[in-house]
């Protein structure tokens, strides 16, 4: 032990050097990366000539994947913080319906309708969190109640006000609105115009839009997905708050003992999940021009499955936003790919069940490696 340098402790002979394979194995994204490679290989082999990989096909599965990604980011951070939100799907239906009722039925400007719908959703998300934190009840039960309450209102309000369960006419209302394009617009339209003109992507060959590219821009939905993934990933891995998210889900009591505001973290994560659901709903409403009472059905489970495929532990304290995003990508590619490959679409559910089971088994095994359990 020299006096000028740090004392270098002797290596413990019982600690085996960790192989780089094992090291890679404990990264939460591993399952997602392998799954993504496998899925793309499969469809490149079996559906390469089906139009799945031309500009239109790519846009098709990217949009579906982006939908899953938006809700998966929220569900991922919440799951790492140790909680679930089963009300995501109902929240999507509810937010969309509120926008439709405010703007079409009540005649408010669309920007105001969107803003009020967001505020409502964030408040309900925060309420979920407050109830879970205050009562100490499992979030599973609390948000299951919210699932039914919100879905009930989503069906009741349009029937009460308009005697129907689908409210349309939002697209017309949204024209010229300053906030609506943030959810329903497209970006890089000039770039796609350029690609179309130079025959780099497919263009319409006849009809009123002859010469225009089939894909004329990237929908804001995809931009939101990328933004939320980057935001979630940076928040989780690069900030103080991210450490608190891990700590709150890893062991809430231990985190409280060192002064982590666990309750605040959990309530904020419930609110963020609601925010993601509201983004999803607004994009969907702007895309379809209508809101339906059955929108968002089962989305909560799809979000949770994407997160679990992405390597997060159901028990909290471990996971990755990038992994969840890959999980959502696998989801979207397979769902649309089976369609392109001409496979019976009900088999998608079989695939989901199988991959979910495999992911959970892999995750359990990985946790044993991390925590050194035997």
């Amino acid at each position: 032990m020299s006096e000028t340098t740090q004392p270098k402790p002797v290596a413990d002979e019982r600690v085996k050097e960790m192989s780089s394979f094992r090291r890679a194995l404990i990264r939460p994204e591993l399952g997602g990366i392998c799954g993504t490679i496998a899925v793309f290989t499969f469809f490149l082999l079996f559906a390469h000539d089906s139009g799945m990989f031309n500009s239109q096909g790519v846009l098709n599965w990217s949009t579906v994947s982006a939908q899953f990604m938006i809700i998966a980011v929220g569900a991922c951070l919440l799951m790492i913080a140790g909680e679930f939100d089963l009300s995501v799907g109902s929240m999507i239906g509810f937010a969309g319906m509120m926008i439709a009722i405010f703007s079409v039925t009540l005649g408010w400007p669309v920007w105001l309708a969107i803003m009020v719908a967001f505020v409502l959703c964030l408040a309900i998300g925060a309420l979920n969190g407050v109830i879970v934190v205050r009562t100490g009840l499992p979030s599973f039960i609390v948000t299951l109640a919210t699932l039914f309450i919100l879905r009930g209102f989503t069906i009741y309000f349009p029937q009460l006000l308009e005697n129907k369960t689908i409210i349309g006419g939002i697209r017309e209302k949204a024209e010229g609105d300053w906030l609506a394009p943030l959810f329903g617009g497209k970006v890089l339209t000039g770039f796609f115009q350029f690609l179309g003109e130079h025959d780099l992507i497919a263009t319409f060959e006849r009809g009123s839009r002859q010469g225009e590219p089939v894909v004329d821009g990237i929908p804001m939905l995809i931009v939101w997905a990328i933004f939320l993934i980057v935001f979630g990933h940076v928040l989780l891995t690069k900030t103080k708050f991210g450490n608190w998210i891990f700590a709150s889900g890893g062991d809430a009591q231990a985190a409280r003992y060192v002064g982590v505001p666990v309750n605040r973290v959990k309530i904020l994560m419930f609110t963020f999940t609601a925010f993601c659901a509201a983004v999803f709903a607004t994009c969907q409403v702007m895309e379809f021009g209508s809101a339906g009472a059955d929108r968002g059905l089962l989305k909560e489970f799809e979000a949770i499955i994407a997160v679990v495929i992405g390597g997060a532990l159901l028990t909290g304290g471990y996971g990755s936003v990038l992994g969840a995003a890959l999980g959502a990508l696998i989801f979207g590619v397979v769902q649309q790919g089976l369609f392109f490959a001409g496979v019976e679409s009900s088999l998608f559910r079989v695939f989901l069940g199988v991959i979910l089971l495999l992911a959970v088994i892999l995750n359990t095994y990985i946790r044993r490696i991390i925590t050194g359990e035997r």
Partner: protein
Amino acid sequence: MNSRTTHAPIIEMKGIEKHFGSVIALAGVSVDIFPGECHCLLGDNGAGKSTFIKTMSGVHKPTKGEILFEGHEMHFEDPRDAITAGIATVYQDLAMIPLMSVARNFFMGNEPTKKIAGISFFDRKHADRVTMEEMSQMGINLRGPDQAVGTLSGGERQTVAIARAVHFGAKVLILDEPTSALGVRQTANVLATIDKVRKQGIAVVFITHNVRHAMAVGDRFTVLNRGKTLGTAQRGQIEPEELQDLMAGGQELVALEGSLGGTV
């Protein structure tokens, strides 16, 4: 030894009583804690040790009695107040989060930040470097700062928790049965850590029901029995056998006597 009694205590607990409904958990306990000393709090299960340290660390408010910290009367509303004042507690099971890396655990609740473009980020480089330094000083080999705490042994986890408390400026370190679940070698490591910490001038409150562990590092010994204390003894004034008898409420523990000869 006498010099130790001349300086002022950092914590004075005077006539602490704690009632939970009709149950009297503490019936007037007075203890003084001195900086640079290891104060062992001994007692059998149910003696009131946990209640007493939870009162000291701000988890419980005493029903009666007063707490003086550095000569001033203190009223801790919650554990956070006590931590801010410099009283850190390391709980036996709840010290660390196994799934998180050592560096993330070490800085949990005290994350260093640096600003990039006005946004405050978790300074991972700083955290990693400090963690490696602190761990090597405590004699723990890490593969890297990102190694999960779950891969450390129980003794190492206690040591990390102690190093963390000391690093963040604890003046009083309360250790709740740090050795009770550990093997011989790990216990020795934790006791050595306690000794290091004490020599830095920090007051250590060491809760245990193992007399040998207490004798190995203790400067003062207080035995709690059924919510009461029979006073505090200094090192050299009391024999392990006496401590053991006091803990058991004065009953002779003939069968165990033989094993109490050495002090680890």
